[in-house]
């Protein structure tokens, strides 16, 4: 059994331009590690959506990715405002994004549903005023 490889990233909440850098790096790492394009794409899109959310809704946060041959786990944690109604936030098209965010090409309310669709499991832990922790797992078929 090979051991789990861990990656840690700080996601800068002040910088929209750099949002997604962690996901791009994970994508490269997974490619180097030899995962299939399908797995790589699912992990990187789910993480990218989560990273963008941390930047546009929560002022940034941290991303930890745990890679082992059977599964890839992504944990995104922020100290933003939290999500008041998770089932509402999970609905396609629901968004509290500002017009500014929309003019940048995000805020269609597809991020969380997309993250769920591309992963095998997704758990949201959120407390108002404290922050949000999202744990996603993509299983690697053997």
């Amino acid at each position: 059994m090979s051991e789990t490889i861990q990656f840690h990233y700080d996601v800068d909440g002040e910088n929209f331009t750099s949002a997604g850098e962690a996901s791009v790096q994970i994508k490269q790492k997974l490619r180097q590690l030899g995962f299939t394009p399908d797995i790589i794409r699912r992990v990187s899109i789910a993480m990218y959506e989560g990273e963008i959310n941390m930047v546009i809704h929560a002022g940034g946060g941290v991303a930890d990715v745990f890679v082992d041959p059977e599964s890839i786990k992504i944990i995104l944690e922020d100290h933003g405002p939290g999500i008041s109604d998770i089932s509402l936030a999970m609905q396609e098209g629901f968004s509290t994004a500002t017009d500014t965010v929309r003019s940048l090409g995000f805020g269609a309310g597809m991020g969380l549903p997309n993250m769920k669709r591309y992963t095998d499991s997704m758990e949201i832990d959120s407390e108002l005023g404290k922050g949000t922790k999202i744990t996603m797992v993509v299983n690697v078929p053997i």
Partner: protein
Amino acid sequence: MNANVICGADSLDKDVYSACGSDMMSDVLAFVKDQAVLLTGLVNSQVIRTAQMMDMQCIVFVRNKIPAEDMITLAKNSGLVLLATPLRMYEACGILYSKGLTGSKCNE
């Protein structure tokens, strides 16, 4: 499309078969599957990242939008071709469509 090549000129001989057009990166991430070309009027670094995430090969900026230097650097690093056309989205898409690029599997 009367397009200028911004970067990636050495990849221009590659064949592509499908495309999609959108200014909402959220929608591209949600609905697009296996399209090789993204047409957009949006210019920021997340357009490049979205194309990277979706394993696309080419971005066409419509209405002569020219990306900033840092976007071009990002694109070069990931081997993306960037083109700029004076055409508007509708016309640019129409031309590519009529040349045989489908929107297959793109639910937009």
